[in-house]
Each structure stands twice: as structure tokens, then as C-alpha cells.
């Protein structure tokens, strides 16, 4: 083999390998929300509530304003406070739902970046419309799972 041929091959293949694109596309969910299912007492399946309002007591922001016929509530949590005090109205009655949690950084990928996941520590509620609650899943991350079940 001639030296010039070899050099040509080196240059060609070097460029082939050097020009590979570094593409990064995020194909995963980056949504981390607390998901609450609404149940009738004793039921195993969610049931719709005619009217739902959810407000953050500390920031006075409204997540749900008189939303009609819904059976699930999804809320973002603040990683800096580690406590969410929510005013929840199911039809006519108001309850206060307090969620205490820990937050932790979680790196998804180089395409998607980082999110903060939460681990539920304690959930407290008043009992006006709410009868009881369960916490089937304590880890709040990008998985689409129901973390709290509210029974009325």
C-alpha cells in the first residue's frame, strides 16, 4: 500500500468519526407533581367531585378554581419549603390538607436535566368533607402514580 493512500484513508476515517453529531433529545417526563385521587368512603375506584377548589394557604395561589367533575388533583411542590398547606374545597366544605415532605435533586439525563423529587413524610387533614386518607406511594417523582387517596 502506498503511503499516500494510507494517509488518505486516515484522513477520511478521522473525519467520519470526528463529525458525528452529539444530539441530545429529552424523551422523558420532567413533571414532578403530587397526585391526589378522590374517592367515596369505602370505594376502590376514584369518583368525580362536582366542584373542586384548591389553594395554597401560604402563597395564596390557586391551583384549582371551582373545577367541575374531576376525580384527580395534581399539584407541584415547592422544594424550598418542604411543606404544603392546602385549602381544599370538595363541593361545599373546606378542609386543610398539610403535606410534609423532603426534597432531593434527581438527575434524569443529559438531555432532560435535573428535577427535584419528594418523599412524603406526613399528611394531615381536617375532617369536614374529608373522611380519611391513605398514602399508597410516598415517593413523588416523574412516574405517573397516585400518592394520596382522599376519601369523603
Amino acid at each position: 500500500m502506498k503511503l499516500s493512500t494510507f494517509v488518505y484513508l486516515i484522513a477520511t476515517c478521522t473525519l467520519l468519526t470526528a463529525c458525528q453529531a452529539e444530539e441530545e433529545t429529552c424523551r422523558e417526563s420532567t413533571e414532578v407533581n403530587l397526585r391526589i385521587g378522590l374517592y367515596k368512603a369505602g370505594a376502590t375506584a376514584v369518583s368525580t367531585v362536582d366542584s373542586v377548589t384548591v389553594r395554597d394557604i401560604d402563597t395564596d395561589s390557586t391551583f384549582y378554581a371551582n373545577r367541575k367533575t374531576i376525580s384527580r388533583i395534581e399539584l407541584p411542590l415547592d422544594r424550598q419549603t418542604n411543606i404544603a398547606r392546602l385549602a381544599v374545597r370538595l363541593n361545599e366544605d373546606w378542609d386543610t390538607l398539610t403535606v410534609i415532605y423532603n426534597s432531593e435533586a434527581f438527575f434524569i439525563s443529559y438531555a432532560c436535566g435535573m428535577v427535584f423529587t419528594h418523599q412524603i413524610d406526613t399528611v394531615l387533614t381536617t375532617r369536614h368533607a374529608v373522611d380519611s386518607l391513605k398514602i399508597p406511594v410516598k415517593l413523588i417523582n416523574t412516574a405517573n402514580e397516585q400518592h394520596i387517596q382522599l376519601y369523603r
Partner: protein
Amino acid sequence: MNNIFSFTVSVLVMLAMTVETAQSQTTVPEDSVRAPLWQGVTVEIDMAPVVTNLFNDRSSFRYEAAARINLLNKYFPVIEAGYESRHQQLNSGIDFLGTGMFYKAGVDLSIIKSELKHSINNKFLLGARIGMSNFEYDVTNIPVRNAINGSAASVDWTGQRQTAYWMEIVAGIRIEVVKRVIMGWSVRTKNPFGEAEAGSVGPWYIPGFGRAGDSVWAFNYTIGYQF
């Protein structure tokens, strides 16, 4: 896709060069003298990064060299070492910088028996390596979305240190182009040992290995001197 194309080109060229070498050997009688155990040592430098370094920014470069011992003209214990730095800004906005030494040890086998005294330095080699890299990396500008108000922020993850291990399967050719000057070309597949812990900021790139995660293909174009 580029990897597949590059691999195909590599295989075709390697086959062409092997055929060319074989053709030049057909008319000379066989030499039956048994070779001694020690056949010398070849020191090689990888020329591919010398070219690609010219096209990269100053924070992305690689240098790699190897020493290959020739035993019986059939077995070739190899030690490879290098230093690599890789800087990459990704579409997500993340900025990665990884730098460190890497080492590989293994053995090549000459899988085509040379029938000629004067062509004894032309070889088709098949071998394996164990690779190790001890490196530092910085990951900056990692996007973090504020779930409450939707605003975007970023965090930095700097000063990380890690040691990575992997295995390589290597195929290549070595041709003596001038007396004692050996040119070579290798294609190799690299398979990492272990996986990054979920949720941790692992390296995007491992010096000496390539893109972290799955197995990768790589090519080496070497020039060496046989002592």
C-alpha cells in the same frame, strides 16, 4: 448511522489491504525456520486524535500511545495509555468537561500466518483489552425547572472524580511501510462495566472510552516504530 458507515468502510479497507498483502505472498516458497520467542517491541502513536485535535476547541484533545511486545510473531501483549480532555455543550444547555488519564492492557493474536520472511511485519490482529480511566469532570448549567412557577434555573455539579472500567474487542492490521516503521488501523468495540446510579450526575464522556452508557465503536490509526 455514522458509526455503521464508518465501520463498513473500515472493514472493506481492512479486507482490501489483507487481500493485497496475501497476493504479494503467493509466489515465494515457505520459510520453515521457527521464530524465537522474543521478536521485539513496537511503540505506536495514535494519529487520529492528532488530526481531530486541530478541529476541536482547546479544551477537547486526546493523546494516546501503545507498546506492543512481539512473542513468537503470534502473541502481542499490549499496553496502551493516554490522556484525554473532552468539552461538550449539549442541546439541553448542559456544559460537560471531563479530563483524565486512561490505561488499557491486553493481548493481540496474529490470526493470519505469515509465510514470508520479508512480510513478517504485516499482520492481521485480533485481541482484547481491559480499560481503566481515572478522571475528573464538571457538569455545569444543568437545567432545573421550578415546578411552582415554571421558571427555569440551573445548577452546577463540579469537581466530580470517578474511575471507570471497560472491556474492548479489537481487530486491526499492521503493515510495515518502511523498514521498522509500522502503520496500523484498528476498529474496536468497547463495553462498560457497571452502570451509573440512578439520579446521580454521572459523566457524559469517559476519557479513553467515549460516550458513557452503552457500548461504543472506536477507530485508531497508528504509526509505530519496531525496536
